[in-house]
Every structure is written in structure tokens, then in C-alpha cells.
């Protein structure tokens, strides 16, 4: 169980990126976070990963406080962030150094195959397309078999077709190992295709406005009436969140 316990983060410049955010994600759950640009989603993931320490509150994984990056927590950044001086296979195996060569090779080969890039294993990152690079980054995050995987808008820069393909990849991977998965997105359809639950964030300061269950059976059919109905439900919620936010927020929050 991953727990964010009343986490607040104020940046040195005074921006209150998170205020009093509490979340609980159980093992095997896939939580999707949606919210407007700049509302604090990346800040939340970075705090959950231990990369940044919250100003207040704490992050717990199965009761252990997370104050620095932890081997059981993997994070996938918004950009692939591949190391340009390592070939694809070595990028994927980056987190496995120190393990026996044979084991490493086996796990790397498996992870690369899982994202469908076996024929690109010996290629430099610069020779990859954007979608391929992102898939390598996914393989790199998964190869250490983290029990928590935090994904920051992993597919937002991709075209609709690649995105759907990678969403399916991700669901397959999640099905196999059942890690805790927290995924940030701007895309309501993506949230509904992937999420067991959806957390909606509001901004200034960043807070969780509400968390809803997604009562759709898997595999999910984007074209079904039930899917459409859920989409309308989420849209309505987002709308009212925005309205409440506009209503409540003092004027200066909207000045730039």
C-alpha cells in the first residue's frame, strides 16, 4: 500500500504546488490522476518517488517512510530521459548493474521484447522515434520489477495510434505483475481505459478534489455506451471542479 499522508509541497519561490494531499493506493491498483496544467501532478509523483521531499506530511510504502528514491519504486518521467551514450539494451539494463551478467541479459531481453523492440536492442537512443524511446523508458522502469510504478504523462507526446498500443502494453504488464500503478494524464479517455480509480486534482494550491471509481469491466471498450456514460460523468465532475475552483479561489491566484 502506497500512502500519501497530508503531503504539502511549497517550492522555494513560494508556489504552493501541493496542499494537504492524502491518497492511498492499494497493491494491484491502477490510480489515474487527472488535472489541469500546473496543478501539481508532477510534484505529487516526485514526492511519491522520494526524489523531492515534501514540505509537510510523509509518503509511506507498506509502512516504511519514503524520503529518498527507493528500489521498490520506479518512476517514468514525462520525457524518455534515455542516456544517449548507452545503446537501447544498456539503457534498459541501467538499473540492474551489479547483478550477474546472465540474469541481467535475460531480464533486459525479456523487457525489450515485452515493449516490442527486440530488433532495436543494439541501436543508439538517437536512432529511435519518440514512441520507441518512450517504450525503452517503460522497459527501463519495469526491468527492476518495482512494486510501485509512477508514470508522469507517459503517452502524452504520442500519436493516437501509438498511444493506444502502449496503453495496451502497459495494461498487459500491469496484469502480469500487478504492481501499484499511479499514472498522470490530461486525457480523460486514457484515464477511463486504464484506471481502477481516477483522482481529480484542482490547482492553486494543488489538492485532490475527489476520487472516483471506474465501474467498467476489463478489457474496456472505448466505443461502448457504458464507456461514454463514464466519460460524461468525469467531464461533469471536472467541470464542477473547475467552477468551484474559479468561484472559491481568490483573484490573485489567476494573476500571472
Amino acid at each position, binding site marked *: 500500500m502506497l500512502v500519501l499522508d497530508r503531503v504539502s509541497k511549497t517550492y522555494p519561490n513560494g508556489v504552493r504546488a501541493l496542499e494537504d494531499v492524502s491518497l492511498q493506493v492499494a497493491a494491484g491498483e491502477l490510480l489515474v490522476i487527472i488535472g489541469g496544467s500546473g496543478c501539481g501532478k508532477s510534484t505529487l509523483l516526485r514526492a511519491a518517488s522520494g526524489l523531492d521531499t515534501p514540505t509537510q506530511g510523509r509518503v509511506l510504502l507498506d509502512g516504511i517512510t519514503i524520503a529518498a*528514491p527507493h528500489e521498490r519504486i520506479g518512476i517514468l518521467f514525462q520525457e524518455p*530521459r534515455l*542516456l544517449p*551514450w*548507452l545503446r537501447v539494451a544498456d539503457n534498459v539494463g541501467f538499473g540492474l548493474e551489479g547483478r550477474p551478467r546472465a540474469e541481467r541479459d535475460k531480464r533486459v531481453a525479456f523487457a525489450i521484447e515485452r515493449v516490442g523492440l527486440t530488433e532495436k536492442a543494439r541501436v*543508439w537512443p538517437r536512432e529511435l522515434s519518440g514512441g520507441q524511446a518512450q517504450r525503452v523508458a517503460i522497459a527501463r522502469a519495469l526491468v527492476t520489477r518495482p512494486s510501485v510504478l509512477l508514470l508522469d504523462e507517459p503517452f502524452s507526446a504520442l500519436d493516437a495510434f501509438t498511444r493506444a498500443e502502449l496503453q495496451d502494453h502497459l495494461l498487459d504488464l500491469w496484469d502480469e505483475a500487478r504492481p501499484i500503478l499511479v499514472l498522470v494524464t490530461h486525457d480523460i479517455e486514457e484515464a477511463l481505459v486504464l484506471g481502477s480509480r481516477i483522482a481529480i486534482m484542482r490547482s492553486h494550491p494543488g489538492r485532490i478534489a475527489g476520487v472516483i471509481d471506474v465501474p467498467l469491466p476489463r478489457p474496456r471498450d472505448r466505443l461502448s455506451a457504458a464507456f461514454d456514460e463514464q466519460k460524461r460523468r468525469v467531464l461533469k465532475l471536472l467541470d464542477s471542479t473547475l467552477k468551484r475552483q474559479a468561484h472559491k479561489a481568490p483573484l490573485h491566484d489567476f494573476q500571472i
Partner: protein
Amino acid sequence: MMISFQAVGAQGELRKPALARILRPALGLIVPVGLAVAWELAVKLGLSNGRLVPPPSIILSTFADLAATGELQRHAIVTLMRVAAGFGLGVVFGTLVGAITGYSGLMHRLIDPTLQGLRAIPSIAWVPLFILWFGIFEKSKIILIAIGVFFPVYLGVMGAVLSVDRKIVEVGRVFRLSGPAMVRRILLPAVMPAYVISLRAGLGLGWMFVVAAEFMGASEGLGFLLTDGQQLGKPAQIVAAIVAFALLGKLTDWIIASAAAPFLRWEDAFARR
């Protein structure tokens, strides 16, 4: 239809660059070779006596004579040793100080302004002072060369360390790299391309400064051949020494470039496209 058309097109495209690859460098040779031949002819035909500007054949034979007596090698080795010592010193200090000021903001604010101030001084201006301090022999020469090498290496390393992508460093943090592992697996490879460029720039300056150093009084070295040629009125010897400088400069630069090549293969993959 479509396929065969493309195949022919692809072959035609392949053939063209192959030819161009041979021809393009050859184009660059036309002017210098043409000038050399023209000058050679002009002297042969008696249009000029070629005393102050010796024709290529005289330069070649002077070069060959100097090489045959072993003179050339002796002077070249002395100069090479000076460059090697000065380059080594300059690289060691440039790398250390550059890494420190690049890494630590405090050290940067403390040291960098002074070094930038010193850098503004034309290094040759130090020569009289160095002679007073270190004498006229090897020490002052090597220090002058080292200073010439120091600045490009210092600037290159500092800039490279400063511009290491924080996002890539975070990848290292996510995988919980220790300090030394972070240096070895992230920082070193990241600064490598800029470092090699700064080494090559430093080497170029090293060759420039060895000439200045040998002008300030030397009984050996290629720079001595230059001043000796001037005093004895032997322009062919001067040009032969210049040719030797050019060859050695190119050779040492090539050594650095090829020693670094295995570490920069990932960049090559990019450049080749």
C-alpha cells in the same frame, strides 16, 4: 514499376556520393597544388630567383637533408617533449579546476572571476616575468605552454559540467547511484564530447605557445630552427620547420581524436545521419 523505379533511383544516389566523396577533397587541393606548381615553374623559368620564397623542390630537399642528418628529428623531439609536458600540466590543472568550479557554485564564485581576469591577459605578456622567475630554460617554456593549454581545457570542462542535464542526473538518482557511480556512469560520459573538444583546442594552443616559448631563447627545438633560419637567411629551413609543425600538430590532434573515438561512438551515430 514503382519498385524498380525506386531501386534505380537508390543506386544512382549511391553512386553519386561515392564519386563526390573522392572528388570533393580533391577540389580543395587544386588551389594549393596549382600555386606550388606555378611557383616552381616561375623559378625554373627564371621569372624569379626564389631566394626569399623558395620553390617547393628546394623546401623538400631541405626537409630531406635535415631529416637525413637527424637534425630535424632531434629538434622535433625536443619540441614534442615540451608540448607534451606543458600539455600534460595544463590538462591536469584545467580538468581539476574546471571540474571543481563546474560542480560547486561556491568555488565558481570564488575562483572563476580571477581566472577569467587572468585569461584576458595575452599569455605572451607573461614571458618576461616567467624568465625572471623561472629562468630561460625548460621550466619557463613548459609553464608558458601549460598556461596556454590550461584555459581552453578549464573553460571546456567547467562549461561541460555546468551544462550536464539535471534531468539525466535525476535518472541516476532514481536508480540510487552512489557518488562515485554517479560520476562514472552519468557525469563522465555526459561531459566527454565537450572534454575532447577542449583537449583538442588546448593542444592547438600548446603548439602555438611552444613556438613563442622557443622564440624566447632556445638552442634546440623546431622554434630554434625558425629563428636560426631567419638569422642565417635560410628561408627554406624556416618553411621546412613550419611543415614539421604542421605535420606534428595534425598527428597529435589525430591521436587524441582517435583515442577518444571509442567513447564517442554514440555521437558518431548521430553525426553520420
